[in-house]
């Protein structure tokens, strides 16, 4: 029975309506990939844009502009092309919530 319960619990997780399983941690994990350059939780120690507390809409627009070549960059235009709109949204939501 235990195994059945686990399966049912997992099935229910899939019906919560979010785009990603465990949405909060998904955004946190996705953003952590950026932290290697932009600082833990977006708190840059200098020389890179600090993303902590960055307004969500502004970050979403910046990443889309990088992707479309509307914003000049050395690296970010190449990296931004690797993310979907939904992923950009998840990352921007996380950083906007950081103090």
């Amino acid at each position: 029975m235990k195994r059945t319960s686990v399966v049912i619990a997992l099935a229910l997780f899939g019906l919560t309506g979010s785009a990603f399983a465990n949405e909060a941690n998904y955004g946190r994990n996705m953003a952590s990939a950026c932290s290697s350059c932009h600082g833990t939780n977006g708190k840059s120690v200098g020389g890179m844009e600090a993303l902590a507390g960055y307004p969500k809409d502004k970050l979403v627009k910046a990443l889309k502009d990088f992707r479309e070549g509307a914003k000049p960059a050395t690296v970010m235009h190449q990296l931004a092309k690797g993310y979907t709109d939904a992923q950009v949204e998840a990352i921007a939501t996380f950083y906007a919530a950081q103090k």
Partner: protein
Amino acid sequence: MTINRREFLKVSAAGAAAAGVVGLSGCTGAKGSGNVVVIGGGYGGATVAKYVRMWSDGGINVTLIERNTNFVSCPMSNLVLAGEKKLEDITVSYEGLKKHGVRVIQGDVTAVDADKRSVKLANGDTITYDRLVVSPGIDFMWESVPGLTPELANTKILHGWKAGPQTVALKKQLEDMKDGGVFAIAIPKAPYRCPPGPYERACLVAHYLKAKKPKSKVLILDANDDVQSKKGLFMAAWKDLYAGIIEYRPKHEISSLDANSMTLKFEFADAVKADVLNVVPGQKAGDIAKQAGLVTVNNRWCGVDWRTTQSTVHPTIHVIGDATQPAPGMPKSGHMTTQHAKIAAAAIVSLMSGEQPADPMTIANTCYSYVDGKQAVHVASVHTYDAKEKTFKTVAGSGGVSAARNEIEGKYAWAWAKNVWADALL
């Protein structure tokens, strides 16, 4: 059937128990409990130690075992070789990790017992774990260079492929070399740690020689058929900045080394005699990975499930960094290793807290190389999980290299270093 919160907690507990977790957190704010041991305090080990503490809100105990007293970065170490930076500039202490509650032990792990879930240290101590992270970096395949021994590699024929005393000693050999001397760097067959590293080193050694000993030469003796990374950018630098100093020779796989006469022999090319022989031997996962039974690919690398970095042999052991058999397109780089570490940290906290795992994250690599004291070039890539193929793949249309060498990226390269060190260790 509906499931209430109470039943859900029961189910989570059952799931966690099935996953081999020792205990569960209460509702104290801390997430998860139990003991994580990390072997190796490089880019991967330091990052995973910090992030497990941070993401479990201090609920999970983390012990990091590292043989060196401080973290010394391989990326940027070629700047030290060229006299542009000092070893202190690329050294970070482990005090920052202690502030995150990581127990840092200086020592050498001599054995892993996966059944008993324990590691043994050279001093005889045994430490038990619920989950183990193995981040040992690389060790050398001495047999790849007949005539080379570990002893020679520590005295006369240096590799400079692990930053620290090797970097300092190689710098001294370069400084002691006469004007008009030959500095030869021998590159092993790929895969090896840091694909662009040898070519960056050639640039920075030449940068030093151009200013200090302009009659000297740098010979790049590459076992591979061609330049392994940032080819156009390096070739342009060699032509524009170091004409008459750097000479690139592909298809130079070493057949033997004679340290007395300072000569390298090759199967299909003329022998080379040099004043400094910087021989980078072939590489494999750090020795402890083999002892722990984690090596699964070509007797060299550790296979993992990239969603969690769990070893394909022992699911309670995670392997990250240069020791792994990478997913297609993943380079063996310090930056990539920090990304592995974050996948591992997220998985470990989920598995040890009964928390629902998030979907696999997307990871990225950005790797800078200096071509002189001020200008740098980069290669970047984005990697996302492909559920069908059960591995990470590079995202089509993403990534790329610099349009040309430039000073702005020289500044970004150093800012990258300061930020990635802080993210891993502070």
